């Protein structure tokens, strides 16, 4: 007998049925059948709504309401009865948005009729999970209904389902039972399922044609219970704005310490006085109601003074993290258009805040010195905007969450009411000021008359210092990512935790928290009440809180119940409350729900919705209620993810990714990492342009991409790894199929030039990095952060090194040093230092000796040869540096180039032109002809000292032009040019313009006094003097066009003005197939006078140049 096609409504795509299980199904789950018997009334409504069909439809609707699936697959069977053959089959109900009970019953009726008519057993879907319904013959009255036995006797096709509705009898009142796998469901849940079925059947007559999403589901008792656990206790709203409480504290306890920072304290009186004066100054500057004032400060007293001042002035506090990339800061400031930016002078300069009305708090005394320090007494309305916090946004721009003074007062009021913070309490500010949870840490202590402890960021990230800090506080809140590193450290370092007995409140939140972490919190802080706090900026952070029980082990992390004056709802897609145990989206209402998003009415309307006359915020988090009424958060329902507690819109990261130079398309996903955390992975399709990119170009593009992302996004939003794809996988809707994206390769890109770890310490450190960062190869020159590390992983790394080697590395060392240097530090600190220090032998360096010497006519030139440790060399390299100040800028990179080449077997000579650097003479005595002779002398000296048969030369900027002109007289194997000056006249004009700009910038010092002219008609340009002859030669200098058939090949590295350089390369080297240009996406900014004195960092430039010197012809 052939199986007929399954009964599935047209266009319905069947997926496995998702049941609202209480426990996860794992391979280890042991199936244990249990049953729950109940009575149901199945009305006979006639037509399509025949009883059995209606029963199937109602069962299907209940399942749909649990999981939201648009197709509900079900098994159905009828056990044998006298005169009837048993049958079993599968069907699939189309429970889409337009489905009604009547339509579903019609689908079911048709399927059932077909099944009964055909007779015999047919395939059903229930062999391995899912749900089924089975009819059995009534076994007489009383309790003789044996549902378990019936399931045992059911056809094998439906016997193995997880949730089996067994129905006996044929009249309206029937006996029924759910037979279920007790390893998956709690009895209470199944009991609720029975109640839901009854409600749906009871509503069938009245609502047969209503969309299934609007059918009632919950029993009256369930509704009553939900209401009782979803509403926080009602308290009178706070009567006044928060800063009034601080003023009251200042009046009552003026000498009490309000803020501590490092070893300094600020009393309430002083804090209030400074804030009042600054508030008056802000008022005078035009700050007031609904006018934002940005606060861009580093941790210090500034944050408390500025925050209070802005609130007192009635303006809007907008915290801006000065560590954010300047583009993000500008986005925020452009969005808020602040009346002023409170900051420090060095930040104003660094972040280019000039156009936003910066007020430097360095001058606080001078600015507000004459203004009164008494309270302003300004009337502030509860609906007036108090602050705007920026969170990650889907459109690529951060979005500003606007909260009122009433929101703020509620925020702190409910927290204080719940946790009981008092005047004797001390609380550290651990969160970044740009996150809204920081308001909890800043304002709770100040409003309650306690002490706020402000911490530097490196302090927070240093486990030892944090442990010491926590031993001196009574309250603290920290994200799970921080605790995950901090608590193990404390446990390792402390035999007893008595030092932390003063902590009476320890809370965490902001991300999913593992139960083990809560157990650790209980252990380390033995006298603390431990809480989970759940919320977000849009509801003023205080949504739910869970008191972690001390009398039993935590096995599941809940976020608890709502705070006072807060309502929480777990709703399905149609905004119906879902039953306990069923997953829905978490919504909040109450006094903390903020005004909305700044300049984003569309988004505000989308996220803040009215339900039953109350304004709710849709969190985007999915969760459920436990049988005890605790809210449990399970994750996100959109593309928002949390990485180390930071909420990230993947759309914003993707926006930055797609704007990166060389990237054609890209997506970002969060993936699990080896250490159990999540990390962002960027999948990119690189733009190829015309022709295939070389491997070097591809790698340079990827390197540039990393830099672009690092400079475009906050550190926590920068992807940890990048995967290059030829194209993004698409699904049948032509959308990116994220599930089809490959796992990121654990193997890093092999770098043929990379030096492999050798010593035991180096290998061990490399092994730790590989595990933490998910890369297979780590070279001696690699830097932890450049390989994708972040501060939390750095803490983990430091902890592991300490555990393995007993060596405490510092965060700055991990940030700055290479693997090789870190290994040396470990060796030195673990006792090998003594051995090394006692040795008189040369250090175990991969580099050869460095030999400084004078040479040339009259021995007036200074050079330093980076000799190679490799014997029998045939190649050497000569570096022709820029002339003048550019020489100093490039020197760091060129020295690294020389070391790299020497270590790789190419001895390299760096030298100073006559009149520059450490050579003799004055710049004004030299000329281009003299510098070209210097190059020839250096070439000769290099050949003499090394005996090399082949010499490659590197020319940089003007040094490149000089080299190219000197080259015909030299026997060079290769010429490498880095941002060459092709046109001396243009270079002179550029220098002259920059020098004039420099002089203008000096006028506030020189007060119009012109600089003295050099004697003899020369000219002073950017710190060097050029003789008349030198200027004449310079203006005539140009790189000659390469002959098509002779001369050494040229490699050209562009790190500024790539388009212009490509054009020049084409005109000078275009006829030579053996010449090549590569561009690094790092702008050396030779023409930026603000960088006049900056030393160029080596961002891969030395490696690129070295590859050009040594690479194949």
């Amino acid at each position, binding site marked *: 007998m052939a199986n007929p096609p399954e009964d599935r409504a047209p266009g319905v795509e069947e997926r496995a049925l998702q049941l609202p299980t209480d426990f996860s199904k794992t391979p280890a789950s042991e199936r244990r059948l249990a049953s729950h018997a109940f009575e149901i009334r199945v009305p006979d409504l006639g037509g399509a709504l025949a009883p059995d069909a209606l029963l199937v439809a109602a069962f299907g609707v209940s399942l749909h309401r649990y999981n939201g699936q648009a197709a509900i697959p079900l098994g159905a069977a009828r056990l044998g009865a006298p005169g009837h053959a048993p049958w079993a089959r599968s069907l699939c109900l189309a429970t889409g948005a337009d489905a009604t009970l009547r339509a579903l019953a019609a689908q079911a009726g048709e399927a059932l009729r077909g099944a009964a008519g055909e007779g015999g057993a047919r395939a059903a879907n229930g062999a391995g999970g899912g749900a089924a319904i089975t009819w059995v013959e009534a076994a007489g009255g009383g309790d003789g209904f044996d549902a378990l036995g019936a399931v045992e006797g059911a056809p094998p096709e439906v016997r193995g389902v997880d949730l089996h509705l067994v129905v006996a009898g044929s009249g309206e009142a029937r006996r029924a039972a759910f037979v279920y796998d007790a390893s998956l469901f709690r009895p209470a849940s199944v009991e609720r399922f029975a109640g839901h079925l009854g409600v749906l059947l009871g509503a069938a007559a009245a609502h047969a044609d209503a969309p299934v999403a609007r059918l009632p589901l919950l029993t009256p008792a369930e509704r009553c219970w939900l209401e009782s656990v979803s509403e926080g206790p009602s308290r009178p709203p706070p009567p006044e704005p928060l800063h009034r409480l601080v003023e009251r504290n200042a009046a009552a306890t003026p000498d009490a310490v309000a803020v501590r920072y490092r070893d300094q304290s600020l009393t309430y009186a002083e804090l209030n006085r400074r804030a009042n004066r600054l508030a008056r100054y802000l008022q005078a500057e035009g700050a007031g109601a609904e006018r934002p004032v940005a606060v861009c400060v580093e941790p210090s007293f500034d944050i408390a003074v500025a925050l209070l001042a802005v609130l007192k002035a009635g303006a809007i506090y907008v915290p801006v993290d000065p560590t954010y*990339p*300047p*583009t993000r800061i500008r986005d925020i400031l452009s969005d808020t258009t602040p009346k002023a930016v409170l900051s420090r002078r060095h930040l104003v*300069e*660094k972040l*280019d805040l*000039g156009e936003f009305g910066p007020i430097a708090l360095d001058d606080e005394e001078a600015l507000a010195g004459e203004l009164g320090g008494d309270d302003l007494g300004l009337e502030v309305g509860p609906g007036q905007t108090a602050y705007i916090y920026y969170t990650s946004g889907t459109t690529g721009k951060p979005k500003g969450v606007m909260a009122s003074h009433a929101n703020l007062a509620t925020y702190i009021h409910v927290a204080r009411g719940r946790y009981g913070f008092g005047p004797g309490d001390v609380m550290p500010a651990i969160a970044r000021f740009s996150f809204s949870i920081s308001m909890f840490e800043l304002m709770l202590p100040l409003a309650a008359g306690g002490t706020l402890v402000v911490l530097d960021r490196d302090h927070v990230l240093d486990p030892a210092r944090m442990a010491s800090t926590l031993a001196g506080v009574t309250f603290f809140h920290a994200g799970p990512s921080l605790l995950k590193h901090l608590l193990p450290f404390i446990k390792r370092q402390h035999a007893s935790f008595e030092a932390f007995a003063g902590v009476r409140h320890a809370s965490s939140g902001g991300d999913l928290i593992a139960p083990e972490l809560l157990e650790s919190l209980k252990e380390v802080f033995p006298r603390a009440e431990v809480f989970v706090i759940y919320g977000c900026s849009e509801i003023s952070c205080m949504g739910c809180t869970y008191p972690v029980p001390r009398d039993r082990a935590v096995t599941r992390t809940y976020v608890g119940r709502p705070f006072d004056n807060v309502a929480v709802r777990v709703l399905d897609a149609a905004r119906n409350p879902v039953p306990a145990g069923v997953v829905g989206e978490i919504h909040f209402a109450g006094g903390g729900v903020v005004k909305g998003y700044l300049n984003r009415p569309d988004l505000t309307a989308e996220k803040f919705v009215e339900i039953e006359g109350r304004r709710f915020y849709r969190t985007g988090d999915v969760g459920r209620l436990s049988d005890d009424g605790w809210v449990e958060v399970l994750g996100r329902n959109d593309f928002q993810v949390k990485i180390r507690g930071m909420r990230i819109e993947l759309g914003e990261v993707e926006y930055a990714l797609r*704007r990166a*130079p060389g990237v054609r398309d890209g997506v970002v996903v969060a993936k699990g990492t080896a250490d159990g955390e999540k990390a962002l992975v960027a999948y990119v399709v690189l733009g190829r342009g015309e022709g295939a990119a070389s491997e070097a170009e591809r790698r340079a593009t990827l390197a540039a991409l990393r830099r*672009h992302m690092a*400079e475009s996004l906050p550190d926590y939003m920068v992807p940890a790894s990048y995967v290059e794809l030829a194209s993004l996988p698409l699904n049948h809707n032509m959308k990116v199929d994220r599930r089809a994206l490959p796992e990121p390769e654990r193997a890093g890109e092999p770098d043929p030039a990379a030096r492999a770890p050798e010593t035991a310490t180096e290998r061990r450190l490399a092994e730790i990095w590989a595990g933490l960062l998910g890369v297979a190869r780590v070279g001696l020159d690699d830097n932890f952060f450049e390989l994708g590390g972040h501060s939390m992983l750095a803490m983990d790394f430091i902890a592991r090194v300490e555990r393995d080697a007993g060596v405490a590395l*510092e965060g700055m060392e991990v940030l700055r040093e290479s693997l090789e*240097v870190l290994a*040396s*530090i470990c060796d*030195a600190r673990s006792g090998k*230092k003594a051995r090394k220090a006692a040795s*008189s032998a*040369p*250090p175990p*360096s991969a580099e050869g*000796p*460095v030999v*400084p010497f*004078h040479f040339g006519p009259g021995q007036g030139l*200074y050079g*330093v040869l980076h000799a190679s440790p490799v014997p029998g060399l045939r190649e050497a390299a000569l570096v022709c540096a820029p002339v003048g100040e550019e020489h*100093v800028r490039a*020197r760091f990179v060129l*020295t690294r180039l020389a070391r790299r080449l020497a270590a790789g077997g190419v001895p390299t000579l*760096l030298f100073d032109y006559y009149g*520059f*650097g*450490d050579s*003799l003479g004055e710049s004004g005595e030299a000329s281009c002809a003299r510098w070209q002779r210097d190059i020839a002398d250096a070439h000769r000296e290099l050949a003499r000292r090394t005996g090399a048969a082949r010499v490659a030369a590197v020319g940089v900027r003007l040094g490149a032009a000089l080299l190219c002109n000197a080259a015909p007289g030299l026997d060079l194997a290769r010429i490498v040019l880095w941002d060459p000056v092709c046109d001396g006249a243009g270079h002179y004009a550029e220098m002259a313009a920059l020098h004039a700009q*420099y002089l*203008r*910038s*000096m*006028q*506030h*010092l020189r007060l119009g006094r012109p600089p003295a002219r*050099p004697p003899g008609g020369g000219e*002073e340009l950017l*710190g*060097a003097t050029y003789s008349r002859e030198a200027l004449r030669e310079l203006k005539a200098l140009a790189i000659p066009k390469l002959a098509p058939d002779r001369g050494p090949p040229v490699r050209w590295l562009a790190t500024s003005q790539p388009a212009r350089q490509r054009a020049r390369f084409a005109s000078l080297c275009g006829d030579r197939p053996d010449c090549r240009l590569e561009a690094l*996406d*790092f*702008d*050396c*900014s030779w023409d*930026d*006078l*603000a*960088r*006049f004195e*900056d*030393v160029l*960092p080596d*961002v891969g430039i030395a490696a690129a140049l070295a590859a050009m010197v040594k690479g194949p012809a």
Partner: protein
Amino acid sequence: MRESPCQFGQYRQLVGIVTEPSAPPPPRRLACVLVNAGLVPKFGPFRLYARLARRLAEDGVLTLRFDLGGIGDSRQEYPGQPLHERTAIELGAAVDYVAGRYAPDGVVLGGLCSGAEDSFRYAEGDARVAGVVLIDPFSYRTEGWAWRHLRYRLARRSLRALGLYEPLPPHAASGPDGAAKGKPLVNYKYMERDESGRILKTLLARRARVHFVYTGGMLEHFNHPGQLAAMFPGVDFGGLVTLDHFPRTDHTQALEEDRRALVEAISRRVAAACRA
């Protein structure tokens, strides 16, 4: 005058240049050691150190200018040590080299910015250091500074309004084309007053001379010669502390005439010390 490169330090990892005078030595044979300013190699900002060494040689004073580990031509060693300790070891090696090879009557350490503070910090623990020359080192705002600064700001604003002064554009994270630019490698943080006050007292107690030079580049922190005494109230300078103030020059003396004036001023102070 004769210049010769040298290498010293435990592993000969430090590279320097000794400028030996051909002029007869002064009554008190002091030798100078110049310490890197930031990451600028041993010739100094706009060759200030090279010029100074050659000028001092005219007065018979020998000078060693050298690169600290990791800067210029010197290789970084002692990675297991924090930076300050590493610098102290290397400065000690430089003083050892000069003292051992040329046997001066005393050593004068000096430098600009970080070089000044490195010199000052090292001098505290080495009695061979007879004096320090500190160009734009730490400075602390005082009440007087604040009043003068208001006037200065007013003048600067007026100049700007008149179009006579235009500050340099601040560093941008990206150019107009969105291309990324680099960040400064070093963000220098000056010494705290507690530390500088302690060192100053130590040096004065052993009769070492301390010469301060402040340029206009420090006006945001130092704007009057009288500020020096106010920065260290209660410290008796005892005639051992001197100061040259160049409010019209910038921090690195990019102009030839500024460098020349600075070199002359310092050489005069060193010459005076050599006569004392």
